[in-house]
């Protein structure tokens, strides 16, 4: 791998049409669990092939087996979580919001099988992908715990066990996403406590992804988060978060979002190079990773591929300018 400006993605990839169809057939009882799993594997193989062809350094399996990042784990934690009724998220979109109904505990591996399958298809490292305890709790109803803190810390023990399993299976990168952290910056201390439980004793490189938020007032807590790499959404907000890194000492790695995942438009080479250069103003290339702002699942396959190709091209050109070998 190159010595700087490593490229990666945040986690999700668009589901191919045949998989979306199969998922709805499965939910109607028309195909079996095994038939669905075979198609999930087929889609994972396509995601791995795309990333290799594009030339990314650190891969993901694309979350083809997950509908949404909270419900996937909630369904597997069946002794302490249930899937509730439909709640509207916006417009005409509804989702089944999970409910914590008992004391949270790990019941068995949840993310290992698909990670192992994906890693078996490539020589490049594949990240193990987990949803963080704060987000798991915040995006669920809670009928069991008396405080959010108790729920988050118990959930953190569950996610920690899963991270240990991923590490045992050979994962060198473990990402624990906390997109909900940005909705309530005043609870960053609780986010940090949860992540501390999750990452305790892990040797793998740990990463957390957060959505854009008002982080200025809690940046001193973000600086101390018990993770190795912070993955942030920056392209769609004009890279304004980078100002915080200019003002505060930051020793961790940063994965810098340079692709706006909510836009159909493919970024130009120059735009992305400019974003990377802005990142380089505050962090050395060895600690700066380059990726999209967020998961790519809302884009089409072709849009995602086109955006990633330009991103990799931009990184190669900047590496050349800096004299870093590909």
């Amino acid at each position, binding site marked *: 791998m190159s010595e700087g400006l490593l490229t990666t993605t945040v986690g999700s990839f668009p589901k191919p049409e045949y998989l979306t169809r199969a998922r709805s057939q499965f939910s109607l009882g028309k195909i079996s669990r095994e038939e669905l799993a075979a198609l999930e594997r087929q889609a994972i193989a396509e995601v791995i092939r795309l990333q290799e062809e594009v030339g990314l350094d650190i891969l993901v399996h694309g979350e083809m087996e997950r509908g949404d990042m909270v419900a996937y784990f909630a369904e597997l934690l069946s002794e302490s979580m249930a899937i509730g009724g439909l709640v*509207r998220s916006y417009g005409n979109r509804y989702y089944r919001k999970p409910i914590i109904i008992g004391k949270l505990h790990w019941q068995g591996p949840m993310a290992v099988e698909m990670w192992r399958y994906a890693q078996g298809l490539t020589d490049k490292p594949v990240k193990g992908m987990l949803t963080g305890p704060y987000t798991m709790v915040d995006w669920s109803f809670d009928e069991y715990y008396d405080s959010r803190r108790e729920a988050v810390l118990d959930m953190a023990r569950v996610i920690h066990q899963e991270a240990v399993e991923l590490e045992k299976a050979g994962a060198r990168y473990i990402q624990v996403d906390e997109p909900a952290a940005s909705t309530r910056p005043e609870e960053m201390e609780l986010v940090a406590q949860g992540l501390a439980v999750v990452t305790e004793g892990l040797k793998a490189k740990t990463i957390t992804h957060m959505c854009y938020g008002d982080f200025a007032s809690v940046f001193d807590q973000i600086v101390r988060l018990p993770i190795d790499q912070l993955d942030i959404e920056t392209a769609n907000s004009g890279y304004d978060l980078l100002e915080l890194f200019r003002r505060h000492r930051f020793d961790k790695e940063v994965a810098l979002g340079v692709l706006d995942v909510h836009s159909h438009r493919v970024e130009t080479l120059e735009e992305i190079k400019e974003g990377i250069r802005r990142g380089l103003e505050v962090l050395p290339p060895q600690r700066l990773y380059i990726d999209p702002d967020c998961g790519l699942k809302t884009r089409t396959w072709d849009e995602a591929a086109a955006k990633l190709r330009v991103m990799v091209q931009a990184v190669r050109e900047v590496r050349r300018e800096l004299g870093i070998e590909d």
Partner: protein
Amino acid sequence: MLTTVVGSYPKIPNRPRPARLRAAIARFDRGEIGEDELRRVEDEVTIEVIQEQVEAGIDIVSDGQIRWEDDQTYFARRIGGFTIDGLIRYFDTNTYYRQPVVTGAVQWREPIAVNDYRFAAAHSSRPVKTLVTGPYTMAALSANEHYGSFGELVLALARELRQEVLALEKAGVPLIQVSEPAILKRKEDFPLFRQALEQMMEGVAVEAHLYTWFGDIEGLFPQILDLPFSTIGLDFVMGPANYEIISRAPFAKKLGLGIVDARNTRLETVEQIVERIRRVSDVVPLDGIYVNPSSRLEYLPREVAEAKLKRMVEGVRRAQEVLG
């Protein structure tokens, strides 16, 4: 003691009941049905959710805001000067609304909620309250690309929404709820907030209630009691400090007591409801209390919302026996 709601009843039920509105909107979006057919389904669902509230025993119902995509765009799409932009998170919930953008002078053109009120009133055996999103919250949740300052926008919206309030009054609505959750996030704006609401309600005779949610009124009490509303609605679930805050000065208004959690499925017990009413009964006489959920009900699955309203009514009846 009367029971009411703070609006936005869940739009679709769960299986085996059919999600008719969701299906109708999807078909409308695909061009398979026309606007008349969509409106007909909205009417049917509105009648259904009024009926559910009545059956739960709610004294003052709402039309459930079935036709509203969210509290902001229902008005912004019908007041001149707005365009509607991309999705943005509603406070700290995991739900989103389309952000209104003020690109020109805001202007009320014609009654917005009057026909909806008339329809609901014709199909309800109980009084129907009408909701108006307040000028401060409308402004705070919009992007301002036209007015020189946020304050100018708030006051302009107060002036235009006053036309809506007057139209509702003329149509004979018995009760208007002005929803202002955003003031709890920027309490230093209270002088502007007061000025806007005083202008909006000037010369208005219809009974009007001011509702807030997602926090407490620390820093706004007791001056919030000066505002031109007969009732102040507070969220005692996300703002538990409200219990203590309202005891600091005589509560010279009626109280909207938001004690049933509209954001969590855990069902309150009758005893908890009685206890929460008892906690405020030293400060506000029972006949000065409206008991309601802590906020809009749409954060819950339909069946849970229904169960919570029933439990709330049960709790209020018990409280009347125990405390009355």
